[in-house]
């Protein structure tokens, strides 16, 4: 047992405290704000690193620190923190990526007037997210989960004066809240069945055998309800609609929250409560996991399709995020906790890299986000270009040198051996091709070709922004070392097995399949977009080649398959009508009933009033007149001359004296 477990709570607490400290700063104290935030994050990183060490030493290391939050009646509600490979790896990834993003933000947000507030929120977010990771209680996880949601809400709506930002923030909050309600009910159910919300509690926790045994058949429903929460947070179909809109926030926010960490919380949640999902698994398949797989597949494919037709650099990345999250869900569903988390970790690095790269691009292009107006930026922004390309290749799944390649391959491998159905396997193929396609399209539009309007005055970003890019790019590459099948250190670290080096596993049939798919995607895109941004035949320069070829399909995809519109016409409209109806019922129906009863009373009251007026009042009046006359008589003696009163008193005293003398 390492000492760090006793101080695990410090990891989320430090950024949270830093956030509060920043919030109390004046708007002008920009340097202090940034310094505090970075210091908090660095401290969290250092602590995470310290926490990481013990997990290396023991396979399947797990330490918990539980405490009583409060007692109600004579029962106690206990919360706790846990440190295991899952948490430690996540901690390290979140704090490292977070730190990069913090540093990047100093440059990116340098001109913004909300600088201080931004860093406060960012720190707050970081703290909450780290809290999610180390929570050893579903309730504590839920608490941090909600705080993460709050941070996301605040950050998306950071530019308060923009109505679109506020709308996006609202959408994000409400949509995730819908998922959270499922999570909440699932949590209640779980608590009810197992009697505890602690994950690990010396064999009594709800994820340990004793706790799981109490669940029985309800485990599937509980797992699905909890998964519903993950669907909301991780932008899975059908609750994915908020995530692309969330790009209204500043780009570092998109990188941190909506790419690298927060959206991964859903995946993490599923991984954390994986025993619930896999309870009673036959051949690694349960009904809840099947649902997870299908949701993941749908999401991955749908988002990848939509990403093809987007023109906003951040939106493309947003949809790619959604797609990748779907992929992670699939891998959780088919390949167990480790596969999903490995992709999550790798994705965290390269997606943050991509987002920050896009931020750098946007910064360089003076806040232009439309890729059709960029082009040829590789000449102006070499560092950004190189790092971006690394990120792109990692995302596309180029094997060997990029982390994304290995994890993707592992997922494909697992999907291929999934007993219930082969369909996801082939759908995944399509997903891989599409991913490579849209990423290539994007990079061609942005970095290659001719310099279009927004790219004319482009410039490379300052070092404070490029250095984080380089760090993240190195991360995206170096991570591949621990992901290779030859030395699957990370996998075994997460599952708690000991690792063996075996060079033979490096080359497998799947590698070639994967390589072929990626090459296909890249190849098609290169061919198709070789003349993007210039006139080509009867196609004008500002029309996308794909749009030219397939206008109807392109419009369908560009409009996000009209899912938002569908929701607006159905769910939202229905709720609004329900609201109006409730109000109407209140005002007219229920109140009308009351008024009806009132009217009956009034008639009766009129009757009694008549009796009062004529009968009773007259007698009372006469009595008062008499009393008044008597009072007038008495008041005459009171002249108001105090000396006369005093004299009378003196005379009275004298009289008493005389009386006394006479009696004595």
């Amino acid at each position, binding site marked *: 047992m390492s000492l760090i477990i006793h101080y695990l709570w410090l990891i989320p607490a430090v950024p949270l405290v830093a956030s509060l400290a920043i919030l109390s700063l004046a708007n002008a104290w920009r340097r202090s704000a940034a310094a505090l935030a970075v210091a908090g994050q660095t401290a969290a990183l250092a602590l995470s690193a310290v926490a990481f060490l013990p997990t290396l030493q023991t396979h399947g290391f797990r330490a918990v620190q539980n405490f009583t939050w409060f007692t109600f009646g004579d029962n106690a509600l206990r919360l706790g923190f846990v440190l295991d490979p899952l948490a430690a790896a996540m901690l390290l990834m979140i704090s490292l990526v977070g730190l990069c993003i913090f540093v990047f933000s100093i440059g990116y947000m340098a001109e913004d007037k909300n600088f201080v507030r931004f860093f406060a929120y960012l720190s707050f977010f970081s703290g909450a997210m780290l809290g999610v990771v180390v929570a050893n209680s579903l309730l504590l996880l839920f608490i941090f989960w909600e705080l993460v949601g709050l941070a996301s809400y605040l950050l998306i709506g950071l530019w308060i004066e923009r109505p679109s930002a506020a709308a996006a923030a609202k959408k994000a909050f409400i949509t995730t809240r819908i998922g959270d309600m499922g999570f909440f009910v699932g949590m209640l159910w779980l608590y009810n069945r197992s009697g505890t919300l602690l994950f690990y509690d010396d064999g009594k926790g709800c994820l340990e055998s004793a706790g799981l045994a109490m669940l029985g058949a309800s485990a599937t429903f509980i797992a699905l309800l909890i998964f519903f929460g993950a669907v909301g947070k991780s932008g899975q179909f059908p609750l994915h609609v908020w995530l692309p809109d969330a790009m209204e926030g500043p780009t570092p926010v998109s990188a941190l929250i909506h790419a690298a960490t927060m959206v991964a919380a859903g995946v993490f949640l599923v991984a954390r409560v994986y025993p619930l999902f896999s309870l009673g698994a036959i051949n690694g398949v349960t009904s809840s996991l099947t649902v997870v797989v299908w949701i993941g597949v749908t999401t991955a494919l749908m988002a990848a399709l939509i990403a093809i037709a987007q023109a906003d650099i951040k939106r493309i990345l947003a949809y790619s995020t959604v797609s990748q999250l779907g992929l992670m869900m699939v891998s959780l569903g088919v390949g167990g906790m480790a596969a999903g988390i490995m992709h999550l970790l790798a994705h965290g690095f390269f997606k943050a890299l991509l987002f920050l790269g896009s931020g750098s691009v946007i910064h360089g292009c003076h806040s232009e986000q439309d890729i059709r107006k960029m082009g040829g930026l590789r000449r102006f922004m070499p560092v950004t270009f190189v790092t971006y390309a690394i990120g792109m290749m990692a995302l596309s799944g180029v094997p060997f040198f990029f982390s994304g390649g290995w994890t993707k391959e592992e997922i494909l491998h697992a999907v291929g051996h999934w007993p219930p159905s082969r369909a996801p396997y082939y759908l995944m193929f399509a997903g891989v091709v599409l991913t490579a396609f849209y990423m290539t399209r994007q990079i061609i539009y942005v970095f290659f070709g001719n310099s279009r309007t927004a790219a004319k005055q482009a410039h490379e970003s300052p070092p404070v922004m490029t250095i984080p890019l380089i760090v993240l790019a190195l991360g995206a590459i170096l991570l591949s070392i621990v992901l290779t099948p030859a030395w699957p250190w990370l996998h075994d670290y997460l599952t708690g097995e000991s690792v063996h080096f075996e060079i033979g596993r490096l080359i497998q049939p799947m590698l070639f399949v994967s390589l072929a798919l990626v090459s296909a995607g890249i190849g098609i895109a290169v061919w198709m977009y070789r003349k993007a941004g210039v006139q080509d035949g009867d196609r004008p320069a500002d029309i996308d080649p794909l749009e030219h070829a397939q206008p109807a399909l392109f419009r369908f995809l560009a409009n996000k398959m009209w899912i938002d519109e569908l929701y607006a016409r159905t769910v939202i409209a229905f709720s609004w009508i329900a609201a109006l109806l409730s109000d109407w019922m209140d005002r007219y129906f229920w109140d009308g009933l009351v008024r009806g009863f009132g009217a009956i009373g009034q008639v009766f009251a009129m009757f009694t009033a008549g009796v009062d007026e004529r009968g009773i009042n007259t007698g009372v009046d006469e009595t008062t007149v008499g009393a008044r006359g008597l009072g007038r008589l008495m008041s005459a003696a009171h*002249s*108001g*001359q*105090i*000396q006369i009163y*005093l*004299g009378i008193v*003196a005379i009275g005293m004298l009289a008493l004296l005389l009386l006394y003398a006479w009696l004595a």
Partner: protein
Amino acid sequence: MTPTLQIFLIVSAALFSIGLLAALSRRHAIFILIGIELMLAAANLNFIAFWRFAPQPHQPTGVMFAIFSIAISAAEAAVGLAMVIAVYRHYHTTNVDQLNQLKG
């Protein structure tokens, strides 16, 4: 001949009567107040005298009474004079003969 209690009481009675005289026969409100203060002073003299001549003067009861009485009469004087000023502001007179209505 040392003074007896009687003599003190007679002095006190004289003082009291003088106070009464001032309170009864003068028209000015402040005179009335002075008269009242004199009467109170006479009463204090009585307290002290009775205490001093009592069989057991070790209990400082009379002194205590006098102290409290002085404190209270000080309060009375303050409020009384404030009232005189307030009344004067309102009626522009302090002649008590003219101050005989309750209505402001």
